[in-house]
Each structure stands twice: as structure tokens, then as C-alpha cells.
């Protein structure tokens, strides 16, 4: 029983999930009690979306081992489709139904595009796939940038480069937070669960050795497509929520730079490490937005210097050793070890005592 409990607590899934839940609990308390500063209120939505986007991109880059540079494209497909649905139904449906519905529709639309991109991309590997996904991301951006709705009930809502007018569906963070919490927890949970399943093992097997995976009976095509579709679905859902938090959305925001930003988060968080992506998403988003704001004009310069320093450190052996020595997991392990050690010595002492008597 004791070891069972220990395993449960040390379980990576449980640890990550409870960490995120705790974080959001604190956020909830702050937001709903009115303690949160304006700045904090502003960053909750983008950070949560970045977490979902990074975790879903990690599915492609970290688990499947394919470099995708078009993740922002999938997000914007979901964003624009979902938000249009939401705008169209704003008078008909209450928010509690409208937002989840538009999220699902946005996610499905993004997944469909993921399928279309994934099909030809399956024949490509490495750099070539990166180029194709990069191109697809740009195509999506530019297509949306040139879309106009001129007739019908939604006339004028979407007007090319002027963007999507989301004023009618704008929701403040107090309204969006529950949806964000559910989405982040759901995505993190699902991705962590997949990792420890038959399907996750197959995906990671393809990453480690495609030829051996094929010879072991794994349908590589199926799994590559599945990962593409799933990642696009999650990205699309995050996009829909993102769209609800602003009064105007321009597709130009979600170009190459945005995809690279997400990739940086995944790389710094650690390939295939979900909790890493979550932490990196929070840190790397707040860094330029809050901490480096002091530097004003030199903000992005400072940001890139910080990125270089992190990159150098992550390859540094001594830093790694130091990092391992202070890692949370180790700390937990130590705590439990000392506790069980105490328990063992106690029982030993008892037995010893029994022997003596």
C-alpha cells in the first residue's frame, strides 16, 4: 500500500497535473477576488494558449520527432473558424454552450487542415517536412489575410488584412478562465496519457527508429497522421479561446515568428517533456512581456540574449549537474526516501527489540 501511494504521488502525470491545477487555483483566487493586477489579467489568456500550443507542438516535435514550423497556421485556422461560428451564434446560444461548441468546431477545422498538410508531409522527412509545414503556415496566414465576408449576416466581420472583428464575442478573462483551465488540464492530461499508452509507445518508436518500428508491425503512416491531426486539433481549440479575448484579430500575428516562438518553448522545455513545455511556456512568455519590459526598446535584444544564455547553459555539463541536484523530482524522491527509511529503521528497531526480548 505504501509503495503504491508513493508511486502515485511520484507519478509524473499526477505531479504535472496537480502542479497546473494548483497554479490555476491561485490564479482563480486572485482573479475572482479582484486581487490580480491589470497586467496579470492580460497575460493569463496568452500564457494558457501558449501552454496548449506548446504541449500540442511537443506531440509532433518531441514525441513523433518531426520538425513542424506551421503550428501557428493550424491555430489560426481554428481561431478564425471557431470565432466565426461563435459570432454567428452569439445571439442564439448562451456563452457556456457557444464557446465549447465553437472550440470543437474550430478544433475540427484545424484538424482537417492538419490532415491535408499531413498527407503529403508523410512522404517527407526532416528538413523537407519543416519547409513544407513552414510554407503551409504562411499559406494559411495569407489566405486568411485575403478573405472578405461581404454578404450575409456576417458581412463585414472578416475584412482581409483589417482582421476579424470579434467585438461581439469579446469575453473578459473572468469569463474565459474556466474554459482555459479545462482546456489546459484536458490537453496536458490527454498528451501525458497518450505517452503512456500503446499509441504513445508506437509514436515514440517511430521517432527512435522508423525502420525498426515498421518491422515491428507499426503503421507509420497512420500514426504520423494521427499526431498531426491531434496536434492541430488542440492548437485550433486554443486558437478559438485566444480569439475570444481580443476585440480584433489579425491573421498576420500568427505567422512564422509565432511558430518559431512555440518551437523555442518546446525545445527549451525539453523534447517530449510535457511539464517542461508548460514551464517553458510560462517563463518564455512572461520574460519579454513583464520582466524585460524595463528594457523597452531593447526588449527583443535582451530576450534573444537570454535565449542564447539558456541554450548555452542547457548544454553545459556543470549546469546540468547542478540542475539535477535541485530538481523537483529528486526532492520528492528524497523526501519519500527519508520517510520510508525512517519507517524501515523503526520496524527494524521493533524487530530487533522483539529479538532481544
Amino acid at each position, binding site marked *: 500500500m505504501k509503495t503504491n501511494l508513493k508511486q502515485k504521488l511520484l507519478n509524473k502525470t499526477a505531479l504535472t497535473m496537480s502542479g497546473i491545477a494548483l497554479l490555476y487555483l491561485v490564479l482563480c483566487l486572485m482573479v475572482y477576488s479582484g486581487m490580480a493586477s491589470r497586467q496579470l489579467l492580460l497575460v493569463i489568456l496568452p500564457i494558457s494558449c501558449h501552454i496548449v500550443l506548446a504541449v500540442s507542438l511537443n506531440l509532433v516535435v518531441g514525441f513523433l520527432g518531426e520538425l513542424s514550423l506551421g503550428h501557428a497556421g493550424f491555430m489560426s485556422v481554428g481561431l478564425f473558424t471557431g470565432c466565426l461560428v461563435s459570432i454567428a451564434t452569439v445571439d442564439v446560444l448562451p456563452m457556456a454552450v457557444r464557446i465549447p461548441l465553437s472550440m470543437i468546431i474550430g478544433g475540427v477545422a484545424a484538424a482537417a487542415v492538419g490532415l491535408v498538410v499531413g498527407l503529403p508531409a508523410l512522404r517527407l522527412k526532416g528538413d523537407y517536412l519543416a519547409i513544407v509545414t513552414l510554407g503551409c503556415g504562411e499559406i494559411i496566414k495569407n489566405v486568411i489575410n485575403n478573405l472578405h465576408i461581404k454578404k450575409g449576416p456576417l458581412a463585414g466581420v472578416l475584412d482581409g488584412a483589417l482582421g476579424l472583428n470579434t467585438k461581439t464575442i469579446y469575453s473578459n478573462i473572468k469569463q474565459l478562465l474556466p474554459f482555459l483551465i479545462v482546456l489546459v488540464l484536458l490537453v496536458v492530461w490527454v498528451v501525458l496519457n497518450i505517452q503512456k*499508452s500503446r499509441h504513445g509507445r*508506437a509514436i515514440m*518508436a517511430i521517432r*527512435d527508429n522508423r525502420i525498426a518500428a515498421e518491422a*515491428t508491425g*507499426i503503421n507509420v503512416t497512420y500514426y504520423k497522421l494521427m499526431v498531426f491531426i491531434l496536434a492541430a486539433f488542440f492548437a485550433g481549440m486554443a486558437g478559438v479561446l485566444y480569439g475570444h479575448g481580443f476585440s480584433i484579430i489579425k491573421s498576420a500575428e500568427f505567422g512564422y515568428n509565432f511558430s518559431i516562438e512555440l518551437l523555442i518553448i518546446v525545445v527549451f522545455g525539453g523534447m517530449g517533456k510535457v511539464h517542461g513545455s508548460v514551464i517553458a511556456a510560462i517563463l518564455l512568455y512572461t520574460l519579454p512581456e513583464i520582466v524585460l519590459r524595463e528594457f523597452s526598446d531593447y526588449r527583443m535584444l535582451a530576450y534573444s540574449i537570454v535565449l542564447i544564455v539558456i541554450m548555452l547553459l542547457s548544454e553545459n555539463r556543470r549546469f546540468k549537474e547542478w540542475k539535477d541536484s535541485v530538481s523537483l523530482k529528486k526532492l520528492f524522491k528524497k523526501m519519500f526516501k527519508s520517510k520510508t527509511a525512517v519507517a524501515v529503521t523503526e520496524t527494524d528497531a521493533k524487530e530487533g527489540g522483539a529479538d532481544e526480548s
Partner: protein
Amino acid sequence: MSHKEYVKEGSRMVPYPSGAIVPERDLNKTPVLEAMHLGIDFGGLTAVDDFSLTVGPTEIAGLIGPNGAGKTTVFNLLTNVYHPTRGNIMLNGYTTAGKTTAQVNQMGVARTFQNIRLFSNLSVLDNVKVGLHNEMKENLLSAMTHMFGYKKQEKQADERALELLDFFHMSSLAYDEAGSLPYGAQRRLEIVRALATSPKILLLDEPAAGMNPSETFELMENIRRIRDTFGIAVMLIEHDMKLVMSICEGICVLDHGKVIAKGTPEEIKANTRVIEAYLGKKTEE
């Protein structure tokens, strides 16, 4: 499948179109694997030509030949990594033409690789569980939620994987990272992973490469045990003649992409063409 036609090959009558190694013994059995006149060209180069071979159930067959003879190419043909330019492959009476490598594996062909190909970032146990992939019935929903029978499926897979690892005395390594294993253990793990797919024929590509004599001896025992325990056929490419001659019941010799001899170990040892292929022609003086 019955053989009706026979052709003369060397001094023996051999069933046509198959290439039974020891016809007298294998004729009445349904072959597990039957390669018929396989050939493959890479551009203008013919890597393998007119390769016919039959492997019966529970037979240990050897495929030998000098370096560059096309042995690994044959394995790649048998697993549809390369699709043959000519000829046909039958597995238990079903053709593998047009199938993918993964489908051929599901039809009962498992293999190992000359240069070890493990899923090195996964644990030893997970490597074996990848092999159990198609046996597990966990659907995507239960994988995503870890509900709806997930626990039962994983438990069964864990038990089966540990059982298989135990067969090679590797269950103590189950939670190590596969890439960190010593060389010999990596080779064994590859075999375990292949066995996990419950094959009817196991193809081993140079399983004894880089092993010392005692490890080779252990491997020999293991191959026999695999055949006896799982009741499957084993076909191996190997350069270690001692190993090949002592465990193989039939041997096929390949040189320059062509079969130059087939037969029992004794016949192969005495075959002049084989000796020529390995050692060169005797000069007349």
C-alpha cells in the same frame, strides 16, 4: 500447399517453383515461408536474382555467403522493405505482394537488424511492449483517458513482456533505458522485441556479430530454445560458420546475388562451389 512439379537441381529433384533446402524432409510440410524466383534490380545492378527458398515450420535455416552477396537484401525483400522486381513470396500460403513492412510483420515475419535498431530512448519493457502493439486492443479513447480497460490491457502487456524478457533472463533490466544496455543485451532485446510480435518465422541478421565465443554459444542455445518453445521457424544470416553448421538444419549459400548451393550442413561443407566462393578457385599446376 502441395508441390506437383519437380525440377532437377544439381543431383537432386527439387520441387518447383519452391526452393526446398532438404526436399526429402520438407516436402510434406506446408512451408512457412516460400520465396519463388525473387529478384531485385537497383538501377542496372541486379542485387539478387532467381532466389528461391522454402523454410518449413520449426526449421532453423541459415543464409550464408561472402560479404556483399546480397544476404541482407534478401531479408529486406522478405520483409517488403524492398519490393521485389521479380518473383513472389508466400507466407503460410498467402502472398505478401503489395503489403507494407508492418503488414508483413502482422502476417508473421519478425526480424532483427545487422546494425542494432532499438528504440533507444524507451525503456527495455516499452521496447517489448511496442512489439506487443498489435496484440493489444487499447483504443485511442482508452489511451487518452487511461480508462475503459486501459489498466487491464497494460497489465496484460506488462506481464507478457516480462515473461518474454524472463525467457532471456532480462527481466531485471526491464526499467533501464534500452540505449544504455551493453551490446549483448541490446542484441537479445532486439530478438525479444521481434518475438513479442508473435511471428511464425524469425529472421535474424548476423545475431552473433561482435560476440565472444561464450556469448555465441549462449545465443546458439537461445535460438534452439526459441524454436522449441515458440514452435516457430528461424532463419539466420551469419558469418560464424561454427554456429551455422551446428544449429542450422538447412543452409542456403548466396554469392553475387545468386543461390550457389542448398542443403544440409554436411552437404554444404563438402560443396566445391561454396568452398570456391569463400576461398577462391584452386589453381591447376
